[in-house]
């Protein structure tokens, strides 16, 4: 570990207690990723429903799709702005790792900007042209489809970055995005976990949204009621799959870290067990939602969902800390201002 290319930290001190920043990064990241999940899954859901609707010649499905596309286009704007805070904090507290891993895939990192601009503009075309392009369905679907593909691709770039940042001992050998994609372990397992989480959140969101709407006294239209139940169903089945995907991810971690979750570390093990139990409970609620919907089950399932997401965000942070802990000791961060700096910023 002596010749790792981990640079000395920036000479200017980290501007707040690290504990506070860790708390904030967990919190803001969860908020950000939730909206990202919704953007991706609702876009994919819209395209999927629209295609099915066209094949089956079913206007109900088309309306459901349109509703998804409306929500996706609003959430994508919020997803982007919410992302600023976690990006800011990761840059500040993991400067030595995050900057290197970013620059190693630098060109693809900059492509994110172009790709997202294209995807977002397409999402607007997709939404605003829904009525006008009823006669040009193929064109309309293609627009949504391309946006969806881009949105499904972008997470890979982020996953490569945050995976590579915890593997400094592997930096020297590989550069560039595509090479890294098949070089670092865990990437595809993380991706699977993420995509499933997105789909589940999207379904769950639609269920919540229309439950809330009907609880407020609105009579749900046919397509709204169908979408609500469809959402619950998607959330249920995807979450069942997620129980498997979660374990696949856990077993892709390097042994030192994995065993922390399997009994070695009390906190992490508890978090893991708790998250599994809560997920099963949530599944039961979602399953029941198909048969009877009461406001009580709505609030309880919402509360459980928030808890699960919170625990996931926390565990995710602990994984990174566990991976980095040997380096953090050896390459300390600048926590105090030293005017007489003796290293290069």
């Amino acid at each position, binding site marked *: 570990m002596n010749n790792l290319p981990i640079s000395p930290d920036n000479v200017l001190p980290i501007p707040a207690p690290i504990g506070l920043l860790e708390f904030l990064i967990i919190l803001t990241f969860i908020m950000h990723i939730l909206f990202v999940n919704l953007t991706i899954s609702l876009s994919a859901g819209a395209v999927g429903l629209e295609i099915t609707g066209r094949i089956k010649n079913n206007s109900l499905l088309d309306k459901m799709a349109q509703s998804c596309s409306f929500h996706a286009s609003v959430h994508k704007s919020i997803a982007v702005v919410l992302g600023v805070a976690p990006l800011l904090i990761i840059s*500040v507290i993991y400067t030595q790792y995050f900057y290197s891993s970013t620059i190693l895939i630098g060109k693809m990192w*900059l492509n994110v900007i172009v790709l997202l601009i294209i995807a977002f503009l397409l999402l607007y075309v997709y939404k605003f042209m829904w009525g006008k392009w009823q006669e040009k369905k193929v064109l309309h679907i293609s627009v949504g489809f391309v946006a969806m593909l881009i949105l499904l691709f972008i997470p890979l770039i982020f996953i490569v970055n945050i995976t590579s940042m915890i593997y400094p001992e592997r930096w020297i050998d590989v550069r560039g995005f595509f090479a890294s994609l098949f070089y670092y372990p865990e990437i595809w397992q993380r991706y699977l976990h993420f995509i499933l989480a997105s789909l589940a959140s999207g379904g769950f969101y639609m269920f919540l949204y229309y439950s809330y709407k009907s609880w407020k006294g609105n009579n749900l239209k046919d397509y709204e009621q169908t979408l609500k139940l469809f959402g619950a169903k998607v959330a249920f089945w995807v979450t069942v799959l997620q129980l498997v995907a979660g374990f696949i991810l856990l077993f892709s971690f390097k042994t030192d870290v994995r065993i922390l979750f399997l009994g070695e570390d009390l906190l992490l093990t508890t978090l893991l067990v708790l998250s599994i139990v809560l997920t099963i409970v949530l599944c039961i609620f979602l399953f029941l939602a198909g048969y009877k919907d009461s406001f009580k089950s709505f609030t309880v399932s919402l509360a459980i969902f928030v808890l699960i997401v919170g625990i996931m965000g926390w565990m995710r942070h602990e994984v990174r800390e566990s991976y980095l802990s040997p380096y953090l000791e050896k390459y300390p961060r600048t926590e105090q201002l030293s005017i007489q700096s003796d290293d290069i910023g």
Partner: protein
Amino acid sequence: MNFPYVEYTWLGYGTVIAIIAIIHVIISHGVAIGTSVLTVSLEYRAFKTENEKLDELAKTMAKWVLIITTTVGAMTGVGIWFSTTVIQPDSIGALLRIFFWAWVTEWIVFITEVVILIIYYYTWDSWKSPEKKKKHINLGISLSVASWLTMAIITGVLAAKLTPGKWIDTFSFWNAFLNPTYLPSLGFRMFLAMMLAIVVVAFLLRLFVKDLSLREEAFKVFGVWGAISLPMTFILGLWYLWSIPEQAYDMIVWSTGMTENTFKIINGLAFLILIVFLVWLIRSPKTVPIILSLAVFGASIGFIGEFEVVRESIRKPFIIYDYMYANGLLYQNQEKINEEGYLAHSTWIMEKEITEENKVEVGREVFAGQCLSCHTIDGWREKRALGKRLVGWDEEALKTYIPTMHNVRVAMPPFMGTEEELDALVAYLKKEIDEVNGVKEVSQSE
């Protein structure tokens, strides 16, 4: 070198940053701030004069503000940060730490802005009763205020790069934020934003709105804003100019690549066209010629581009004035690096010993660490492409030039490193110069 690097061999670092930054400035100033203000102004006037069509027009403008700011606007904003992380990691790393809480505040304001914007547009048709309409107009006003606030915060950061002021000694946040050019540049930018919006929206209305009386109504409102903004831009611009450091001031004309006279003529002409346009807008809003609006449109975009390029360039050789050079090296570390060597302080250069075999390789890394921020070997900007510019220079010439280059060309930071490192850099440059020109000869003879 603290970090790895990527190469943009043809574009060069500066151009990559400039493209993203210029697009972002045009949108954040012209659309997010300027057009939002114009939109509520039109909505208000439509409400007062009960003009349905004007209200529709304002709504269309709000829709475009929504579409543009949440796509190109937001992403190029994040993009400036992405690109500086990749290209100037040391500098953005320092800035994030100095201005962390400013950025956090900015983030909160930014979220507010986007949420208000979404509500503002999507409630346009449902908040119709006079009571609700008043609320809606107030929402539009708060949108303008929120967009202005994001500018008020980020300008502190931008201005500090040129004039960090007392921060250099105190390392205090408020010294950095409320730096000597903060107020003038904020004032200048906000009225510039209004001018940009007026010119751009007027041009689009001139093109797409066929209804003469509707256009007249809109132009009247623009005229009022213009009559305030143009003089203010001018006055605050002068104040801004006066408050920048002399060394930087002297580089303004140079940084545009124009001669003194061309610079004066072009900028004077652009200003003149603006005045003519504005007077026309106020005196006879129905007859504004399309050619004139096209001309001011071009002039304004050109001016914004020029402003960005100048602002980025006159800071040279620094990226944070008197503190960090454009290549990320700290001003205070010069002697130390000359003594201990650049390699000793470069995490990402694996070779720590220079030998005959690795000399060129090491030279490449030194070049990447110290010169790539402003130069390319073979890029499109010929003056900065050393392979083209240094035709005919031999190793001796390079070796005597580089250690004194910061005196000859004040835009350059001093070379930092030992004798052997200099040799390595020279060996690398020589090889590249030969290669670039060798290639040229071959292609010419073909």
